[in-house]
């Protein structure tokens, strides 16, 4: 009885020059990444075709199966690297100090004096920078006005800090 033979029109396999993660030596260091950029789109399409062909044939073609196995391994490695990068990025973002924007107001000098007096009327001890931030005023102006208020006796330096 003549043996049945099967001929499969296999699509072109991806270039063997592609750097497989699975075949690279592990550096063992989290900070070093593989350098793999993943498979080009064309190679992915070819591999899908291979998988489709295999699904319709009764015989497994060993190199193609091995190829798809390696693809799965590389995918797993890349996923791990992506998770690692996401974790480190989250860490870096947490450490970046939040930038707070204060829009400085330009108001008449008398109004500034009034507002600073009002701020002090609560009995709080305030630094120049506290006043500048709370009233959204320029620091130099605050220092200037505070000097005037001090000279006129409306505010005074807290002796307790001296």
């Amino acid at each position: 009885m003549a043996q049945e033979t099967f001929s499969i029109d296999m699509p072109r396999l991806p270039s063997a020059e592609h750097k497989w993660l699975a075949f690279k030596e592990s550096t063992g260091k989290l900070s070093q990444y593989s350098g793999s950029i993943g498979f080009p789109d064309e190679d992915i399409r070819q591999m899908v075709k291979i998988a489709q062909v295999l699904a319709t044939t009764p015989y497994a073609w060993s190199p193609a199966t091995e190829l798809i196995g390696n693809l799965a391994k590389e995918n797993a490695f890349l996923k791990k690297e992506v998770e690692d990068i996401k974790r480190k990025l989250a860490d870096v973002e947490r450490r970046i100090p939040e930038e707070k924007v204060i829009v400085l107001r330009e108001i008449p000098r008398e109004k500034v004096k009034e507002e600073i007096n009002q701020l002090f009327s609560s009995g709080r001890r305030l630094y120049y920078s506290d006043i500048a931030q709370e009233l959204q005023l320029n620091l130099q102006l605050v220092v200037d006005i505070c000097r005037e208020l001090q000279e006129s006796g409306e505010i005074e330096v807290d002796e307790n800090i001296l």
Partner: protein
Amino acid sequence: MKIYYELGDALRADRIAIEALDIDKVLIKEGSNRHRIQSTTLRRSAFCVIELPLRAVREKTTNKLK
């Protein structure tokens, strides 16, 4: 208010408030005795004011008041 404008004028205090159009990233330096010093540079229209003088200056002022 005394403001100093000349090259090399300096302030030393326990607390200094600052304002500038640009403020560089803070650098950490290790001084002698492993003290960590933070430093930065203020650029363009920088203004600094002493909010809390050094303790020795404060004590001197308190003694004067007494």
